């Protein structure tokens, strides 16, 4: 049996639709159901619905053989997993944003509010810029408005939230989308099943294009 961790929330419906198009039977995921574990009709697959930020943890620790997770989570968690396919779902960008009209004072340490601590740290290290990270868990856009930070590093999808809060994108760090990942050890022992799933998902993406 192949154990697959799927993200709850924003991505769940798109992921489920893709899996169904790829021939994977997971109808319960669409239902308003509070169960967190679903087995498909022939009992060959078991799907877990977990918090998006936990998918990589479930896969890395082998509780799930494979999973679907946003690239932002992978970059942030530095999970030691195989990243087999870009599913082109949930596309967005991790950006640096600030209040409109903001001018950076390069003479002092930059205050960066974000929940993506590792991504922000790596980005500014590559630019040799000294920063102070302010770790937040939500409503990141508030930080520059209240003077808590100079800039934010956050996911931007359409840009509406930024515009509504009088913020603007200063630079794009990395494009983000959902990825199909696998546990490295499980891949050795369940390779035929995982590779079959990889091929089906790849074929489905190619059909869509």
């Amino acid at each position: 049996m192949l154990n697959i961790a799927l993200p709850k929330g924003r991505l769940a419906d798109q992921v489920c639709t893709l899996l169904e198009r790829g021939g994977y039977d997971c109808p319960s995921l669409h239902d308003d159901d509070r169960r967190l574990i679903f087995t498909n009709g022939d009992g060959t697959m078991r799907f877990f619905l977990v918090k998006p930020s936990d998918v990589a943890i479930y896969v890395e620790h082998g509780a799930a053989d494979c999973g679907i997770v946003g690239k932002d989570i992978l970059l942030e968690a530095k999970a030691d997993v195989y990243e087999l396919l870009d599913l082109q779902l949930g596309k967005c960008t991790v950006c640096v944003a600030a209040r409109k009209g903001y001018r950076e004072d390069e003479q002092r340490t930059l205050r960066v509010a974000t929940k993506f601590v590792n991504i922000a740290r790596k980005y500014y290290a590559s630019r040799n810029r000294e920063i102070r990270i302010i770790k937040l868990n939500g409503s990141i856009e508030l930080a520059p408005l209240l003077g808590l930070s100079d800039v934010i590093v956050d996911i931007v999808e359409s840009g509406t939230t930024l515009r509504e809060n009088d913020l603007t994108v200063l630079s794009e760090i990395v494009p983000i989308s959902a990825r199909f990942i696998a546990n490295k050890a499980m891949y050795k022992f369940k390779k035929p099943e995982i590779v079959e799933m990889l091929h089906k998902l790849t074929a489905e993406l190619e059909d869509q294009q």
Partner: protein
Amino acid sequence: MDKISAVLRPAERAVLSICALYEDHGFKKYKISKFEDYGFFERYKNFLPGEHILSFTDLDGRLLALKPDITLSIIKHTRADASVSERLYYLESIYRESAEGGAFRETSQLGLEFLGPVDDFVLAETVALAAASLAAFTDKYWLEMGHMGFVTGLLDDIAPAHDCYFAILRCLRMKSLHELEVICRQGSLHPRDIADLRTLMSLAGPADEILVKATAIVRNQGMEDALRELAATKVASAQDGRHLGIDLTLINDTRYYNGLLLAGYLQDVPRQVLSGGRYDSMMSSLGKKAQGLGFAIYLDVLEDLMAPEREYDVDAVLFYGDDDETATVLEAVDQLTGRGLTVYPCRQLPPNLRYKICYRMVDRALQEVTSC
């Protein structure tokens, strides 16, 4: 199974049988102090995973480190050279930062090191011993071989920019073809280079098949030598092809390893349990003229393979009281252990102790009681 073996967990029994196997092959147990001069590890920090070394000041003022790596110490002290070899194995604790960060961890490693002139026999023997080590834990294992020389040979010929070089290594490590395509486009690589990197990404599977496929992208002597060395290990894989394969996307630390790479997995253990390879360049960095080849088994990872949960903590509980003579109680314990039972003698039952049978002393004799 004898009584002593029964006390050991399966992983512990496997470790003992592996040690016996290494001794059979002339490897001698290497016992070293837990501490080493801090300056030594600081000097070779590049070879260590993680930033921090657990250190302390000894009573005489010397700064010492708890060993973060055993191979470095073995290389430092080896007498092996270009003609004389040394065969060593160790079962030691190492002290490194935990993967989650923020704390040090003590973990156990069982390792095997060959120092000296590495020839085809040594390569094949090491692969065979790595496979046998995994087989000691379970027959559901997988050992794969890679070669740093093959990967770096191709990348040196392609000669991408420094950042692109390491980004390609990262993509190979993640088996991430889509990321590789992006990196290649960003690095403006030649279409032939991109095609060869794509082929490299697909080179994982049975040894015979991969050795043939890999020849299609050989560009230089280094890559040819790598395939020749991998072919030399076929003797070992021929003995047990179901469990051994080649994965040329296998990458390890480019500062530590320069040749054959080994990675071992056990079914039901979600992490790599064996890692190793050829480390001639590290030998040379430490001023040694010998070559080096070895592997380590991460015993902490094998906690997942421990004994199945027991139904009982002990077979029998034996109650005694103030009226029972010590000699009589001792005799009763002997009587029960003589029957092959494990016994927990006590005046009062500890909470949560699970037992099968309960005894009391009645008139200086054992009497089974239905409930404690």
